[in-house]
């Protein structure tokens, strides 16, 4: 089946895949070819992609996504997200530092707007860090 991962900065993925695991509000859903048509909401988290049927977990590709919309039909999976980062593009140390900064910002937030912004940043960097961690574990 064909997977498209579309962001406002362009298509990140447009390729044939065997399996996609997408985070949703009710937990992760794994999509295989022939999945019944579904339109849903993805939550911030990690998307995992298995390109070929025989690939083991160490070959999964990960993308950190912000929330988005998923559209699944028999032969296509389309994921519309604001931002997606490939795990290989995430620098762990930088993300860790950014997360610390965001946490500090959250703790010292003076008003609701700042607090919300900080929460958003914390979520975002937590997800990115998680994705970076997933890659490290498999490549060892």
């Amino acid at each position: 089946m064909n997977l498209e991962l579309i962001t406002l900065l362009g298509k990140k993925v447009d390729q044939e895949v065997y399996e996609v695991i997408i985070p949703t509000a009710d937990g992760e859903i794994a999509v295989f070819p022939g999945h019944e048509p579904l339109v849903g909401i993805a939550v911030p988290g990690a998307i995992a992609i298995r390109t070929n049927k025989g690939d083991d977990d160490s070959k999964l590709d990960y993308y950190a996504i912000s929330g988005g919309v998923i559209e699944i039909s028999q032969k296509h999976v389309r994921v519309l997200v604001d931002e997606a980062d490939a795990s290989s593009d995430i620098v762990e140390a930088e993300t860790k530092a950014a997360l610390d900064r965001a946490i500090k910002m959250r703790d010292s937030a003076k008003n609701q707007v700042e607090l919300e912004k900080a929460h958003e940043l914390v979520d975002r960097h937590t997800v990115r860090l998680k994705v970076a961690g997933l890659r490290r574990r498999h490549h060892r």
Partner: protein
Amino acid sequence: MASTQQLKSRIRSVKSTKQITKAMQMVAASKMRRAQEADKAAEPYTHAANELLTYFASQGVTAQHPLFQARKIDTRLLIVVASDKGLAGAYNSNIAKTYINELRDDKKNNVKTKSIAVGRKASQYATRLNHTDILGVYENLPDSPGSSELHAILDTAIKNFTNGDVDAVDVIYTKFISGMVQQVIVKRILPAGFEETEVSTEISSALYEPSVEEVLNGVTYRLVSAQIFQALLDARASEHSMRMMAMKNATDNASELADDLTLEMNKARQSAITQELAEISGGVEALSE
């Protein structure tokens, strides 16, 4: 006729101005290319969102959604997008002209206007006007879609629309048509509209997860955000291409001026030499008599 000394220093200053405008032209050209690419890159996203909404509309679920409700317009929110820096030809004044026209129309039709200014030039302008409330001013916007500024603009627009403070939201920006043609347009983003697109994927009889409302909320929110983002990208590409053209004209003018001045200086020098020779030969003539 000016002295050769004066002409020389003028030529020098014109040439150094030319160097600066030439450099600005190059910078604008490379920024324009990048902005143009970013503008194109956002297209698949908008297309996909339009496609989903076309499908939803065919299922009749959009009609009830609050963001699609068209009401009688008593108050309107204008999002004015201009640049942070000047020297971009008529870019900012075109925006200002359209903005003023829109405000005048609103006044005539007894419609109240609120504004959000994006870019320093827009904010300088909007704050000087009296018959519009300023809801927000954003300067030096980063060009990433996840930026909190974009979210702030989007949330302000959606919140004001859903709680009835405004009945329509329009964006005034410069549409990038090609490197040579840019046009100021007023685009309505709320009540949400979408372009009818052919639905290519087989999603008929699709399930909604977790519910129709939430999915529709998510898609509509994304489409509106994509429309605002696209407007910002278009504005940026237009700004750079207009600045490039303005700087190209300035460079051409400077070259022309430098050529004219060089010609004038050569003439002045030549006539001085001729004069001197005439004086010498006149002197020799006088002595030999």
